[in-house]
C-alpha cells in the first residue's frame, strides 16, 4: 500500500510541475488585472473571469492529479478511443456548436460552461500519433507510414479549419517537428521554410525580382556543386517549381484567403496601415506592451488594459497585461519560464525508454511552443491576428484543462519511465 502510494508521485518531475504552477498563477493575476474593476475587488469573486479562472486552476489540478493516478498503459491503449471521440465531437460542434465571434467551436455544457473540442483534439492527436509511430514496423521515412501519420494529423486539422479556427489549425502544423524528430527528412523543414519565405517575398516585392534572385541562386549552386547530374536535375526541377509557386502566390493570396485574413496579413507586412481599423487591435496591443518599459507600470496600474484599449485582454491578448504591468522584466520571466519548460519537456522526452512516451513528449513541446510563439508574435505585431491562447496563462477552462491534460499525461508517462515498455 505504502509502496503503491509512493509510486504515484515519487517519480513525478516536480520541476515541470512548479513551472506549470508558476505560469498558472501568473495567468490568474494577469487575468485579474486585465478585467479588474473597482466593483469587484476580490480575487475570488466568482462572477468575474479571475474568480472563474481560480476554479479552473483548482479543477485543472484535480484533473492533473487524477491523470497521475491513472494506469499509464490506459493512455496508450485508449489513444484510438480518445481520438475517435474527439473527432466525433469536432463533427458535432460543426453541426450543433455554439458560435462565438464567427467560430463555431464551442459545445454548450450548461451552467455557463462551454467545451471547446478543438482543445482536446490536440492531446488526442498527440496520443494517437505517438501510438502509431511507436509501433515497431512503422518508420516515418517510409511513405506509407508518413501518409498515415500525416492523416492522423490532418483529419482533426481539417475539421477545425471548417469551424473555422485558423489558430488551432496552425497549431497542428507544428506536429511536423515530431515527425522530424522521428526521422522525417530535413528537406521537409527546409522546403517549408523556403515556401514560407517565397510566399512573403512574393507579396512584398515584384515577382520578377524574386525570379532573378532565384535564378542567380541556382546558378551559384550549379557553379559550386554542379558536378553531380542528379543534383543538376534536382536543382532545375526545384527552380521551376519555385518560380511556379511564386507566380501562384498572388492568385492564392487573393482567392484562397478570406478578406479578413488578407487585411490582417497586409497589416503585419506593412502593405497597409490602418491604425483605426484592422490594425487597431494590434497597434493598441503593441502600445500596451511597449508602454511597460523596463519594470512595468505595476500591478493593476496598466491603463491600456484597464481602460479596454486592448481587445480580448484576458484571452488572446493576455500578454499585453504582462508586458504593460510587469515590463520587460515580466516578459523575460514569462518567456524564460516557457523556454525552460520547453527544454525540460525535450529533456524528459529524450530520457524515455519507450518511444511512445518520447514521441508524445515532442508532441507536447511542439504544441506548447507553437501556441507561445504565435500568441506573442501576434501581440507584438510579428504575425497577423490569430485567435490562439497563451498556454496556462490565458483565461478559459477548455484551454487550461487541455494543456493540463497534455502536460500531465507526459508527467505520468515520465514517472513511469523505468516501468514497462509500451512499444
Amino acid at each position, binding site marked *: 500500500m505504502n509502496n503503491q502510494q509512493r509510486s504515484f508521485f515519487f517519480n513525478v518531475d516536480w520541476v515541470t510541475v512548479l513551472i506549470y504552477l508558476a505560469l498558472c498563477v501568473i495567468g490568474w493575476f494577469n487575468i485579474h488585472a486585465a478585467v479588474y474593476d473597482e466593483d469587484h475587488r476580490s480575487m475570488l469573486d466568482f462572477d468575474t473571469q479571475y474568480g472563474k479562472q481560480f476554479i479552473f486552476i483548482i479543477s485543472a489540478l484535480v484533473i492533473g492529479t487524477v491523470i497521475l493516478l491513472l494506469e499509464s498503459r490506459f493512455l496508450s491503449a485508449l489513444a484510438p478511443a480518445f481520438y475517435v471521440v474527439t473527432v466525433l465531437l469536432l463533427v458535432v460542434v460543426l453541426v450543433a456548436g455554439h458560435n462565438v465571434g464567427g467560430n463555431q467551436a464551442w459545445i454548450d455544457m450548461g451552467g455557463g460552461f462551454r467545451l471547446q473540442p478543438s482543445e482536446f483534439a490536440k492531446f488526442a492527436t498527440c496520443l494517437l500519433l505517438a501510438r502509431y509511430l511507436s509501433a515497431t514496423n512503422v518508420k516515418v521515412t517510409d511513405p506509407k507510414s508518413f501518409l498515415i501519420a500525416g492523416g492522423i494529423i490532418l483529419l482533426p486539422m481539417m475539421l477545425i479549419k471548417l469551424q473555422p479556427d485558423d489558430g488551432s489549425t496552425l497549431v497542428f502544423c507544428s506536429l511536423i517537428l515530431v515527425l522530424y524528430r522521428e526521422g522525417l527528412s530535413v528537406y521537409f523543414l527546409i522546403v517549408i521554410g523556403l515556401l514560407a519565405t517565397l510566399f512573403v517575398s512574393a507579396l512584398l516585392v515584384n515577382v520578377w525580382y524574386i525570379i532573378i534572385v532565384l535564378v542567380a541562386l541556382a546558378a551559384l549552386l550549379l557553379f559550386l556543386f554542379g558536378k553531380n547530374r542528379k543534383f543538376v536535375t534536382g536543382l532545375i526541377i526545384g527552380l521551376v517549381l519555385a518560380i511556379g509557386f511564386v507566380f501562384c502566390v498572388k492568385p492564392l493570396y487573393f482567392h484562397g484567403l478570406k478578406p479578413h485574413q488578407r487585411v490582417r496579413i497586409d497589416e503585419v507586412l506593412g502593405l497597409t496601415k490602418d491604425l483605426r481599423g484592422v490594425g487597431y487591435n494590434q497597434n493598441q496591443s503593441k502600445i500596451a506592451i511597449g508602454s511597460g518599459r523596463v519594470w512595468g507600470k505595476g500591478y493593476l496600474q496598466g491603463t491600456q488594459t484597464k481602460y479596454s484599449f486592448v481587445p480580448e485582454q484576458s484571452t488572446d491578448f493576455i500578454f499585453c497585461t504582462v508586458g504593460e504591468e510587469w515590463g520587460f522584466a515580466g*516578459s523575460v520571466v514569462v518567456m524564460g519560464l516557457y523556454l525552460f519548460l520547453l527544454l525540460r519537456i525535450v529533456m524528459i522526452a529524450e530520457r524515455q525508454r519507450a518511444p511512445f512516451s518520447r514521441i508524445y513528449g515532442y508532441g507536447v513541446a511542439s504544441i506548447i511552443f507553437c501556441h507561445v510563439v504565435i500568441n506573442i508574435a501576434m501581440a507584438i505585431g510579428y504575425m497577423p491576428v490569430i485567435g490562439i491562447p497563451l498556454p496556462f496563462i490565458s483565461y478559459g477552462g477548455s484551454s487550461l484543462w487541455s494543456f493540463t491534460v497534455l502536460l500531465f499525461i507526459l508527467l505520468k508517462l515520465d514517472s513511469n519511465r523505468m516501468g514497462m515498455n509500451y512499444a
Partner: protein
Amino acid sequence: MNSFFERRYVIAGIFITLILVLLARLFYIQVVDDRYFLYAQNNVMRRIMQYPARGPILDRTGKIMVQNEPIYDIMVIPKQVKPFDTVEFCKLLGIDKEGFDKRFAKAKVYSPRLASVFEKQLSLQAYASFQERLSEFPGFYPQRRSVRIYPDSAAAQFLGYIGEATDAIIKRSNGYYSPGDYVGITGVEKSYETILRGQRGVQNLLYDSHNVAKGSYANGAYDTAAVAGERLVSSLDMRIQRLGETLMQNKVGSIVAIEPSSGEILCFVSSPTYDPNLLVGRERGNNAAKLYKDPYKPFFTRPIQAKYPPGSSFKPLSALIALQEGIITPQTTYLCPGRYLANNGKPKCTHVHGLVNLSSAIAESCNGYFAMVFEKLMNAHGAKNTESSFDSWRNNVNKFGFGVKLDVDIPSESRGNVPTSGFYDRYYQKGGWRSKTILSLAIGQGELEATPLQLANIEATIANHGFYYKPHLIKAIGDKAVIKKEYTLKNYVGINPQYFEPVIDGMQNVVDHGTAVGSKIPGIVMCGKTGTAQNPHGKNHSLFVAYAPRDNPKIAIAVVVENSGDGGTWAAPIASFIVEQYLRGSISKRPSGIYPEYYIEKNLLPDVIVKPADKAKLKADSLKKATADSLKKVKADSIKKSKLISAKNKPAKKVDGQLTAMLPKQTDDE
C-alpha cells in the same frame, strides 16, 4: 532504438532561437523605443482645465456691480437617449421639431458616445422647468456654466466686458489662453484680468477606449484645484453713478467725479451708454454688432478717451501757474474794455468787465485778463525767448496731469493734448512764433485738449491746494484690500498752497454769483468754473468743473454735455445734482428752481450726419483741423502769411463733413 537522437538539438535550437527573437523584439519595443509609453499616455490621459469663478466687482459701499450667475447648457449623449415625449421636450426648451431633429443629428455626427451641447445658455427659469422633468429625458443633462451678470446695468464702460480670446491674445499669452477661453476685452475686466481670472486648475483624467471618463490619474496627485478670482472693490458710488447715467441719458458727454483726498473715482459716466447685460448670453453677438454700428458709439469711453478744449475752465490753472511764477499777484488788475486790445481786440470778452482783479477775472471769466496773463508768461524769459517760456509753462501744465496720461486703471486712456514747442516750430519754423501767435491757449482754446478725467483731476488738485492722487477706479484688491502703491502717493504740482485761495475765491464766486449761479446748492459751498467749447458743427459743448465743499472737499467733478450750449446751462446743473446727491444723499429744492427731472427728460442728442470714416483717418483729420484752427486765429499778426494760407486751406477742405457728431470738436476762441 533511439535513432535521430541528435535531432533534439535542432529542435531545442529552434525553440531557443524563436523565443530569443521574440524577446529581442520585446526588448526593442519595451526598453529601446519610448514612443509606446507616450502613445499609451495619450490614449488615456486628458488634461481637463478647471475654470475658476471670475472675481466679482463691488462698488465703494459694497454693492455688487458684477458677479457670476449660473446658466445651463443642455447636453446630450445620443447613445444614451431613449424614446421620450419629444413634443413636451421641445416645448420646455422653446424649440420646434425641426430644430430638435437638426440639433440631434448634429450631435450624433459629432459623436454618439460623447456629450455635445444641445441647447446653449438656458436661463434660470427655463432651466427650472426643464430640470423638474429631467428624469423623463434620458441622455440629456444640464451642464452648469457661469456668465457675468450686472444687477444695476450700469457703469458699462468702466466694467468693460469679457469675450472669447482672440488669436492675438492667445499668441501674446504664451500659451496661457486657448481658443474658447474667456478673457477681459475692455475696461476693468481687461486691466485687472490677471486678478479677476483666478488660477486655473488642472485635472488629469483617465479615459477608456470609448472616451468615457474613468477617474483621475494617480488619484489626483498631479491635479491642481482652481482658485477663484479675487474680489475687486471699486471706488465708484453706485448711487451717484446711476443718477449720473440717468441725468446724461439722451445726451452725449461724460461725468467724472473724484474724491480729492484719495484720488478715488466716484462717478464715471460715459454717455450714451449701454446695458452691460446685453453682452452676455445667447444674444451677445447680435447685441454687440448693433452697439458697434450705433453712430453714438457707446463703446467709446468718453471720460478717458474724448478730448475737449477746456475753454474757460482752464483759467484757474492759468492763474495758478502765473501766481507761482511771480508774473502776477492776486492784486494784479486789468481794465477790460470788452476785448484784448493788445492783440487787435482778440480775444473778445462777453461784455465790458471794467477793472478786474484775479478773483473777479475768474468769477466773470474775463478773456482779456487771461490773455494779458498768458502774454506775460510767454514773455517771462524775454520777448524773444518765447520757446523757453512756453516750455516751462507747458511743463507746469503737465504737472497737473494735463497732456500726460494719469495712469487710470482701465485701458485706452488718452493723454489729451498740450502742444509742444516743436509742434509750433514745424508750422511756423523755429523762432517763427511769439506769444501772440499762440494766444488762444490763454483761454483754454487752440490746440489744448483735455479728457474729462483730466479736468476732474485738476479740480481735485485745486481742492487739495497743490497735489493729487492719481485717479483710479479700483480701491481694494482681494480679501486683503490691497491697493496699488502708485495710487497712494501724493503728486505735487509745484504750486505753493497760499496761491490757491485767491483762485478758489474766484471759483466760489462763479457759483455764488457768476456764470453758474443757477446751480448753487443751498447750504453747500461749491467752487467751480464753467466752460464752453465751441463746436463748428452744431451747438457748443457745455463744460463745468467744480469741487465741494470748499472746506474739507469731498468731491471734485467735471461734466461735459456735448452740443448743449454754455457751461452754465447744462453741465453745471448736472454737476450740482451729483455733488448734492453725494454729499447729502438727496437733492434739495433749488432757489433757481431747477430740478433733475427736467434734465433727465431732455433729449440733446445731435442729429447724426455721419460719413463712415475709419478711426485712423479721423485722427489725422482732427489733427489737421486743429492746426488749421490755430492758424486761423493768428493769421492777422502772423509772420509768415503765405505759408499760413496754404497750410490752412488744404486740410480745412478735407475736414468738412467728416467729423462725426460724437467727437469733441476743436473750437474757436470765445
